């Protein structure tokens, strides 16, 4: 089996476009981390299997063609006179199963289907173009439980009309004897094929390598913290084929630093879950993400969890600011600019999410949950300098319903 893993590792690093040495070095480093040696208790596969199902209903709306400064709807509006135009609508379902094979092995698989319909702006928040798409994604993984850790090999495939993504990943964990410290190292390789319906490009590809390094530490009977460092390096077609004036660099790399802290308040039967992520990339985008959640348990298996998320990012250095005075025409990119984009997603903005999750443990093995979320995104909500101007605020709401059953 060791040989199989070695072959996989070799295959993985062979396909890594940029960082084979770093990936291999990280993995070997993770296997031989200092201060965590010792005869650990054996990790073993879970005794029960788990089946989960979740349904998602997601809907966006935005005042397309609105003057963002006055909030007045402009003359152009695809769906008529309504103050808000519906944009993308997603109905998705995910089914997942984890089965222990024996004490040393388990396997799992997840099937996700998305059906997307609606409209997306062609530039900034203007000129809706209709779209319809269906995506099917399959993730499978195999986990081996070792005396002092785990190794997980994962494979993923995602297919749409115009986009196919394939990936393989390898994640290793190592725990100390008292199981209070767990180290994680992982590498993932992705290769995507892009064939947009408008044939603006043909057989384009995008390859990327992900690395992660993390530590989870039990700090007290009621505290657990986790730190993760992530690195991504990709090469290929990162532009959006359906947007006007969108030419992005063919290289993208980003780094993330994430910290999470869960604290249980015994006297309140409640748990606070706090997380922060810093992100920086070679396109000039930096972002901060703050997550806060409170899980309140009641009797009879009920729990309620209100959640807040705040996100803020700077614009990509090649982002072209909106110019509402030109409406309905897009502004021209600066003369001689090599890269440019008028996509709202690479502008400077802030985003706020409010959510509420209700969970009911029906019996020892079965749990059902429902979650409602509301998201808003505005240039003025940024925390990093002044936000991008001339973009209509964007809103989305989502509903998730799920069930988890152990067997």
């Amino acid at each position: 089996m060791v040989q199989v893993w070695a072959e996989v590792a070799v295959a993985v690093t062979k396909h890594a476009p940029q960082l084979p040495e770093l990936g291999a070095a990280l993995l070997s480093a993770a296997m031989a981390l200092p201060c965590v040696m010792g005869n650990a208790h054996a990790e073993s596969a879970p005794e029960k299997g788990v089946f989960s199902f979740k349904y998602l209903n997601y809907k966006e709306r935005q005042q397309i063609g609105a003057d963002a400064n006055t909030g007045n709807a402009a003359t152009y509006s695809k769906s008529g006179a309504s103050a808000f135009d519906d944009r993308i609508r997603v109905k998705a379902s995910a089914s997942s199963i984890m089965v222990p094979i024996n004490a040393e092995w388990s396997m799992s698989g997840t099937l996700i289907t998305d059906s997307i319909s609606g409209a997306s702006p062609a530039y900034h928040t203007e000129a809706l173009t209709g779209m319809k798409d269906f995506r099917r994604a399959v993730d499978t993984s195999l986990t081996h439980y070792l005396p002092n850790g785990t190794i997980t090999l994962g494979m993923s495939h995602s297919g749409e009309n115009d986009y196919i993504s394939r990936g393989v990943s390898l994640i290793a964990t190592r725990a100390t004897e008292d199981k209070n410290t767990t180290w994680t190292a992982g590498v993932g390789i992705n290769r995507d094929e892009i064939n947009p319906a408008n044939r603006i490009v043909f057989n384009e590809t995008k390859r990327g390598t992900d690395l992660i390094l993390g530590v989870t530490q039990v700090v007290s009977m009621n505290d657990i913290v986790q730190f993760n460092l992530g690195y991504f390096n990709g090469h290929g077609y990162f532009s959006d084929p359906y947007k006007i004036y969108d030419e992005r660099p063919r290289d993208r790399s980003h780094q993330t630093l994430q910290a999470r802290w869960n604290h249980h308040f015994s006297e309140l039967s409640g748990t606070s879950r706090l997380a922060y992520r810093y992100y920086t990339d070679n396109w000039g985008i930096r972002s901060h993400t703050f997550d806060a959640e409170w899980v309140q348990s009641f009797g009879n298996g009920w729990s309620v969890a209100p959640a807040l998320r705040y996100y803020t990012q700077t614009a990509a250095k090649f982002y072209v600011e909106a110019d509402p005075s030109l409406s309905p025409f897009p502004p021209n990119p600066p003369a001689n600019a090599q890269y440019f984009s008028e996509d709202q997603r690479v502008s400077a903005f802030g985003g706020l999410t409010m959510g509420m999750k209700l969970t009911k443990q029906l019996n020892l093995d079965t749990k059902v949950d429902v979650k409602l979320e509301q998201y808003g995104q505005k240039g003025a909500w940024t925390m990093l300098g002044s936000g991008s101007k001339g973009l209509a605020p964007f809103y989305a709401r989502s509903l998730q319903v799920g069930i988890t059953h152990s067997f």
Partner: protein
Amino acid sequence: MRTKAPVMLGLAFALMALQGCMHIQSVEPWQKGNLAKPEMTFDDDPLERGFKEHIYSSKEASAGGSGVGGGGCGCN
């Protein structure tokens, strides 16, 4: 920008090694009742996490943080 990555990773390694060597009062197995609660773990609902990552990575420029792999998409 690319030279930053090894520096950051090196720094993180040093931090983690230091943290790993620090003496944190050991929590014994019989004291872990609260830590075993699903809400005290970091990945208690993987399907919800999947939807969340999928939505945010198609509406915001950032991605990643706590994992690797997973299928990409041509989300517009």
